[in-house]
């Protein structure tokens, strides 16, 4: 399995993502806010964030709107924190909070062993409303690799009375910005070598939770020139941004001579680049494990390859760089690559900035390129899996950053499920079943991941959940895997019994057209589902009502279903081809499945003689 990386741990606030300039006044208003947010960048690349914020809470549900969280790391210090809780009716100060009064604990993200992050927080407790919270804050960052995004509203159900962002910077360093759905006033002033940008907006109505992120007002900032921990570079182009990462990785790929000889020994029997990649990838998967320890600049800078070799672990950056080092040793060129992994990954190509959370490797062999996910212990070499497929990435080359695209895997062979089963009806409503479930590509990836080193009974349970669920009891099961270059397939061979497979009344038998649950993968450009069920029936059953065969073409799928019956056999064939379902929203995918399921539900009705 592969893991996230914490390249981007540099967030200042954990504010709930929020809000927008909608005008839906029917949305309940739990709080209102006035805030002044000021960023001042210095010549030495350090910058200061000053926040002056007044939040009035009207409802218990808005208590969290006056909660504040700050993450302090090696590059961040909290210079000042001053907060007052005020009864606005009596204008009486109820409580004062200073920096020393903030609750504090270390912050370790899921999957990490350690990160040098400390969370400081204030949580408002109040039983009477309205209550007003006035906060003044000053944070200092020692480098400008990252600026936090700014939003007028901090929360849903929050009204903005006034929100103001001021950014001051030396012209020699520069700052770029990008606005989203911002309909307020913008002003820029220049005085000598200083530049000031100001955004102001008044009277924003509260918005509900279901507001899309893209409908929320937001201002993103990124440096033109930046410095971090002694490293300086430009971020105005992807090329320059990539150069900084290249600079960070420089000198970290050394391997000991003894190990170099081991590598040569491993690949000595082949001249094929693909075979060499496979050998070294398999070696990496077998001997090295994903471990995340992020200290200081380590959020972006990989462990040295020698250390990975020695410890036999590393995070995605470390394992990727280590793989690059090994490939280089056997004469294969590859490039360290940054990616935003996971679902719904966005990439703003026009706004060079740190948008990444994971590292992978691009391998060049002749005029071809291949991709390696170096934290996975189960994927075939040359196949990225669903975590990083089909998206823009930043490849780090000696010449700088280069935007590239990971494979779409649009061939149906990367998303195919074939179910074949033979069913023998028994007298009591049960049925004996024997069959196979063949999966190719992404469905197989899921099965391999879920069954990774699992016990047989857990695989049985998984299978029951995946395809059974309605009375299936597996007596025997085997899982065959084929994991080869760019190819992943699984086949589950099973036999057992389906309890209450068919329904029976006094005179009739009802056999389902579809008895098992299924969840096709709709996150791919194409997909194929084929099912063939052969049911042995008793001669004494006479067909009374048989659904007609189907051949339907809809926007995102083609369905063919055929039912054939003779004296002793019922054959049900389904063939479903999906196209472009990855472009649908989750809701549309859900609706598609419901509509499709309705078409393949129903029963074959037989009368008993």
């Amino acid at each position, binding site marked *: 399995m592969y893991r996230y990386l914490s390249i981007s741990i540099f967030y200042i606030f954990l504010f709930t993502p929020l809000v927008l300039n909608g005008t839906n006044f029917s949305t309940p208003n739990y709080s209102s806010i006035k805030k002044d947010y000021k960023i001042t960048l210095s010549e030495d690349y350090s910058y200061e964030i000053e926040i002056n914020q007044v939040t009035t809470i009207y409802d*218990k549900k808005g*208590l969290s709107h006056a909660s504040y969280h700050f993450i302090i790391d090696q590059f961040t210090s909290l210079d000042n924190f001053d907060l007052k809780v005020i009864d606005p009716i009596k204008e009486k100060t109820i409580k004062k909070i200073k920096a020393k009064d903030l*609750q*504090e*604990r*270390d912050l*370790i993200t899921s999957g990490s*062993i*350690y990160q040098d992050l400390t969370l400081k927080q204030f949580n408002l*407790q*109040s*039983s*009477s409303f309205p209550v007003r919270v006035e906060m003044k804050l000053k944070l200092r960052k020692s480098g400008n690799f990252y600026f936090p995004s700014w939003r007028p509203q901090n929360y849903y159900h929050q009204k903005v009375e006034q929100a103001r962002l001021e950014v001051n910077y030396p012209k020699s360093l520069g700052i770029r910005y990008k606005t989203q759905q911002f309909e307020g006033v913008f002003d820029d002033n220049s005085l000598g070598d200083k530049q000031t940008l100001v955004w102001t907006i008044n009277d924003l109505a509260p918005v509900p939770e279901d507001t899309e992120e893209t409908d929320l007002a937001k201002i993103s900032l990124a440096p033109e020139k930046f410095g971090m921990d002694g490293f300086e570079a430009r971020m105005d182009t992807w090329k320059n941004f990539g150069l900084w990462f290249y600079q960070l990785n420089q000198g970290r790929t050394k391997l000991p001579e003894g190990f170099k000889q081991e590598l040569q020994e491993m690949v000595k029997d082949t001249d094929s680049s693909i075979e060499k990649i496979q050998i070294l990838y398999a070696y990496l998967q*077998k*001997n090295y*494990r994903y471990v995340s*320890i992020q200290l200081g600049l380590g959020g972006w800078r990989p462990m040295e390859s020698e250390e990975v070799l*020695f*410890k*036999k*672990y590393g995070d995605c950056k470390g394992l990727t760089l280590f793989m690059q080092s090994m490939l280089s040793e056997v004469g294969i060129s590859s490039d360290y690559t940054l990616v935003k992994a996971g679902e719904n990954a966005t990439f703003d190509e026009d706004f060079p900035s740190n948008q990444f959370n994971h590292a992978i490797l691009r391998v060049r062999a002749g005029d071809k390129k291949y991709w390696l996910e170096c934290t996975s*212990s189960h994927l075939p070499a040359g196949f990225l899996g669903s975590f990083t497929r089909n998206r823009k990435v930043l490849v780090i080359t000696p010449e700088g950053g280069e935007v590239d695209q990971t494979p779409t895997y649009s061939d149906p062979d990367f998303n195919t499920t074939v179910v074949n089963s033979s069913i023998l009806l028994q007298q009591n*409503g049960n049925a004996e079943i024997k069959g196979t479930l063949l999966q190719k590509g992404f469905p197989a990836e899921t099965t391999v991941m879920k069954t*990774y*080193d*699992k*016990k*047989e*009974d857990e695989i*049985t*349970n998984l299978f*029951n*959940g995946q395809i*059974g*669920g*309605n*009375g*299936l009891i*597996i007596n025997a099961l085997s899982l065959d895997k084929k994991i080869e270059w760019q190819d992943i397939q699984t086949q589950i061979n099973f036999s057992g019994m389906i*309890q*209450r497979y068919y*329904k*029976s*009344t*006094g*005179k*009739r038998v*009802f056999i389902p057209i579809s008895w098992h*649950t299924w969840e096709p993968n709709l996150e791919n450009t194409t997909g194929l589902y084929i099912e063939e069920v052969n049911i042995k029936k008793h001669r004494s059953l006479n*067909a*009374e*009502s*048989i*659904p*007609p065969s189907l051949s339907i073409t809809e926007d995102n799928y083609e369905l063919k279903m055929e039912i054939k019956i003779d004296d002793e056999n019922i054959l049900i064939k389904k063939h479903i081809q999906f196209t472009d379902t990855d472009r649908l929203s989750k809701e549309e995918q*859900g609706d598609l499945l419901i509509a499709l399921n309705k078409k393949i*539900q*129903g*029963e074959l*009705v037989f009368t008993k003689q």
Partner: protein
Amino acid sequence: MTFSKFTIGLLILLISPNFIFSQEMRFGKYNDAEFIYSEVEFEPEADAVVLQEASYNMFLGVVLESKIHRRIKVLKESGKEQANVTLKYYKGDDRIQDIYKIKAQTVNFVNEEIQIEKLSKSDFYEVDAGNGWMEIRFTFPQVQVGSIIDFTYVKADKSILSIDGWVFQNEIPTLKSIYDITFPDFIWYKSLKQGIKTISHDFKTKTKGNFRWELDSLKGFTTEPYMTHFQDYLEKVSFQLEGYEYRELDSFGTDLNQTKSLFDTWQDLTDFFADRLEFKTYLTPKKKTRQITGLGSEGKDTLQLAKDIYEHVSNEYNYSGISAITPSKDFSEIIESKNGNRAEINLSLLAHLRNHGIIAYPVLISSKGNGRSNLVPFPFVDQFNQLIVVASIANKVYYLDATDSSIPFGFLPSQFLVNQGFLMLEENSGLIDIQSHHSSGYYVFDNILIEDESSLKRETAVKAMGFDGVYNAGLFKAENSSSAALKEKLITYQQENLNPVFVFEKNPKSNYTIIKYTTTKDIDESQNLYVNPFQLLRWEPNPFVRSTRTFPIDFGYLFTDRYGAKIEIPAGYTLDDYPEDVSMTLPSGAMSFSYKVNIINETAIINSVINVSNQLIGPQEYPDLKYLIDIISSKFKEPLVFVKNQAMSPESNSAE
């Protein structure tokens, strides 16, 4: 880090692992059998195994020092996860617990050589986990399949009123787990044991004050659906201070040896709490706190008054999310802030009730997942983790928890539905049975008829009662009328749902919700009609897909579901066929199911009852339970068949 190599002699392949593992391990000393070991006999597919773990405990004055040693072997790739270790301890403000002297190393056996990789000081990370909790985190290097990871540390604990003791089981199987404790002469404890192996083990030794558990072959634990929590079933032992000896001088200067017993009786335990200053302020609130609710009691009956008070506290007081059995703030502070932990909120409720003359007492319980499947019948404080309130009104008993305003008066959160609790009275405190008198379940009635000869109309009324009403309150409400989740729950899959209008009637007094809705479906008059009488409202999809079961099935509460349908046989049709009657009961009687069809005149009446009369069903009855639920699920899908009186087409179908 240092790198050491040792050569071991000829492997003694024939030595039985059982023999080898019967020896106690020492850090840094390894035997051949440990390197050979590759499969757990009682869990052959385990990916890692605890070869041995031990906790040796001694008192240094009034500090308990535990020397803990754990040795794990990685058997498969996925077992490498075991190499990431987190040790938790509670530091508090006064270093209540501490961990030190940590040693850890990876041991590999390669080419008949032992290779040891030690962790250095910089490999251990100390993490402040908040609220006084600390963690030591570390990961082992050079971990491969076959590696042994070995670590030891010392834990000091100043909090000796209760001793955490030892859990003998792990996520992975454990070959041997040892807990050894020596109590000094001047201090004595009661032990609390859970699990068959722990309870049946002869823990006494020849050494005075020394007790020792040495358990073998312990299975790894996993969760299953409809179970409370695996922690409630683990093999474990813990301790509570029972008494101690102390010295004082009498008026003549004579040195007297005195003993002090703690918690001899349940009343002692109550007094221990009730004497604490903060606790007292709730039990006997001062005058100035009497008018706090601002609720008038004039003209109200006692039950209504109690409900008003409950509503006031659950709405106005903000629960901090911290479970506790004792308050850390007194009542006046809580009135002021209206924020508190569970004990503070519920004791505030108690104080309000008492102020209005309503009899109310605190009750301590061990909620599900707290690690106690059954309470022990002696005053062991550590078994409890939640404080709730019991009120007696007009000879009826109500159990209350005011931390969640969505749960109505007289109901408890699902994790609190336990069988016993500790009632804290002024006198004669003790354990009581907690019985729920709620009638829970669904009543469903369908009236199905053909309208205008072309439309099948279904009028449905669902009444969700008791806990089924309470726990579905978030779903059964008008705001969800168009939600897919509501339709999925209520509408049969085959039904063609034509945007039913849901009408919700909520009865706050009886705490039930009635949902009424009508659906229609066009029918083809020339075809037969297949009609399912009703939709099964629970276990869809069937949660019991596993073929075997280790832990009991916990339904949480008792319930009876009653389904009824009336179908008028439409003109021009004959009821040709319908589901056969069924009546089944689990061998233990814990669950029963019946399904019956009656034809009266031109109407088919279908009735079905599902009754769960035991909240807990043992794992041995799991196959029968699974089968019964399969039958229920299947029966609910069987249709009634109405045949058109005229000639039929064999290719026709209009299954609803």
